[in-house]
């Protein structure tokens, strides 16, 4: 297995200091990019690397960049999505806390490749530590001439502003993020016809990339597209739930789920068996042990009716009550719905009421059809992906664990022992 690239220095204290980063070859990729390469050449290298957006959608990064018009004299922006809040996902927070210069270097490379002179990092409001470390790292990088005017004597200018959010999952949706960055409520914008690449921040062309996506760029520049691809290409999987060694696992894209869970995350606690898992955050359809040999990549997970999403694997063992977990996810989307569109705002409330009834022992058999019906009516009708994220796990749970719902309804009680005690 190749050595990790992005997480190699995780856990090393003082890594937010620029000297620590420079000592291990930091800013070499950006230096090479600005001094020796044209913007077009960088786009070409990134295209050859196969890098796909790591925010969840997996859109090819170079293609996104190419969609951004580069008209002379027109303002263009780079916006970093650091609003990581998909349940189960913690790779971006880890990158920001443990090695923040990687992403900053990525910003410099992406800004130069797109000839952007102003970048905004939209950081999740609750990331107190990440904000502190990133701010310090940015101040150091400015002081050493990696940001500001005439960077490295190349004549390229770039100003970076770190912008703290204030607690709203919806702002991870790219157009809601832009609204929020413009000082408004985080309501998503209509798309199509205009995507942020064409009409983004202040209606100007905007490159919008995720934290991890940008953190890959320095490595792509230093290793070259082929050298980088030899690492997998690498992906950061966030593994949590009922595993012995949860954490960010940097592995080649397409590592089988079984290997990720049992070799890299330490497997389950003694005596426990696997019941189900979310392969891509709570927006992905849950899958079961029969899917363990599936490679954790975009296509393979889509084929079994789920998705890679933000590559957040939440593992559930046999002590898990599935209806209770799905109730939690429904409540999450209910609380985080921005309220702009009816299917999401009302649908999540209705679903949540039905779950309350079932789990309080007052469920009716026809509630199962009701849940499925509401979920089906939300599919394809919500204004943005927030509402669309509710049905997959719910419907998958009805498919795989219908008997468990029926038991709750028939017996008015759960037949699963309570979840693990805290600290177990």
């Amino acid at each position: 297995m190749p050595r990790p690239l992005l997480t190699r220095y995780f856990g090393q204290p003082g890594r937010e200091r620029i000297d620590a980063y420079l000592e291990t070859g930091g800013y070499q990729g950006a230096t090479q990019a600005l001094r020796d390469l044209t913007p077009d050449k960088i786009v070409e290298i990134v295209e050859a690397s196969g890098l796909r957006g790591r925010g969840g959608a997996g859109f090819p990064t170079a293609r996104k960049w190419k969609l951004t018009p580069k008209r002379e004299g027109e303002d263009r922006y780079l916006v970093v999505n650091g609003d990581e809040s998909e349940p189960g996902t913690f790779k971006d927070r880890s990158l920001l806390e443990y090695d923040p210069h990687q992403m900053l270097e990525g910003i410099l490379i992406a800004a130069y490749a797109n000839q952007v002179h102003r970048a905004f990092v939209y950081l999740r409001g609750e990331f107190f530590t990440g904000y502190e470390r990133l701010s310090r790292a940015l101040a150091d990088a400015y002081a050493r001439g990696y940001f500001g005017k005439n960077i490295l004597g190349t004549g390229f200018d770039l100003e970076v502003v770190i912008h703290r959010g204030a607690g709203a999952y919806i702002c991870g949706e790219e157009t809601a993020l832009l609204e929020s960055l413009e000082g408004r409520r985080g309501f998503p914008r209509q798309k199509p016809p205009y995507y942020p690449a064409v009409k983004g921040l202040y209606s100007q062309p905007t490159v919008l990339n995720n934290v991890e996506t940008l953190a890959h760029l320095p490595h792509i520049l230093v290793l070259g597209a082929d050298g980088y691809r030899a690492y997998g290409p690498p992906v950061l999987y966030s593994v949590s739930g009922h595993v012995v060694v949860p954490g960010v696992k940097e592995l080649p894209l397409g590592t089988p789920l079984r290997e990720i869970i049992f070799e890299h995350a330490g497997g389950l606690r003694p005596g426990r068996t696997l019941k189900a898992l979310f392969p891509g955050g709570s927006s992905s359809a849950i899958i079961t042990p029969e899917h363990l040999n599936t490679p954790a990549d975009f296509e393979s997970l889509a084929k079994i009716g789920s998705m890679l999403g933000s590559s957040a694997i939440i593992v559930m063992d046999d002590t898990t009550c599935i209806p209770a977990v799905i109730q939690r996810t429904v409540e999450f989307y209910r609380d985080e719905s921005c309220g702009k569109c009816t299917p999401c705002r009302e649908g999540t409330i209705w679903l949540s009421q039905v779950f309350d009834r079932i789990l309080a022992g007052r469920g009716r058999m026809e509630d199962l059809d009701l849940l499925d019906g509401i979920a089906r009516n939300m599919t394809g009708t919500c204004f943005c992906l927030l509402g669309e994220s509710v049905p997959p796990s719910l419907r998958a749970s009805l498919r795989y664990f219908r008997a468990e719902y029926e038991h709750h309804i028939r017996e008015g009680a759960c037949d699963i022992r309570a979840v693990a005690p805290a600290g177990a």
Partner: protein
Amino acid sequence: MARALSQTALEEIAHLASRYPVARSALIPALHTAQAEAGYLSEGAMADVGEALGLPLTEVMSVATFYEMFHLEPPGRHHVRICINISCYLNGCDQVLEHLCRRLGIRPGETTVDGRVTLESVQCLAACEEAPVVLINAERHARVTARVLDDLLERLG
């Protein structure tokens, strides 16, 4: 009319506004600055923010009430946020939350009568590898148990 915000805060807000092509973009950062002064956003503080950024009070309030981190009432001196999302749930956050409620004598969203602690149950804090996770003010605590939390609360003052 007397200002709710200090001169320092108003200067900070003017500085924030200068960092964006459009001053309104500084609204959320400015609200953070305003909230840092009194622990919450009073109507006077929001009016000051609005004036600094050229926005009517209604617009400022509309935004302030959308985001969970802004408080329109004075909170406790300490802010305890416990994640109740899936990974924390799978690792026993409900028992920890129950313990907190009993110990503090409040429910999530409430503040102790002495004004010491505000307790909030929150959504995924993106630290699932540390589940169950609690944020006490700006500091995150990993794999918390009832006992660990008792110690932490003890030391809060």
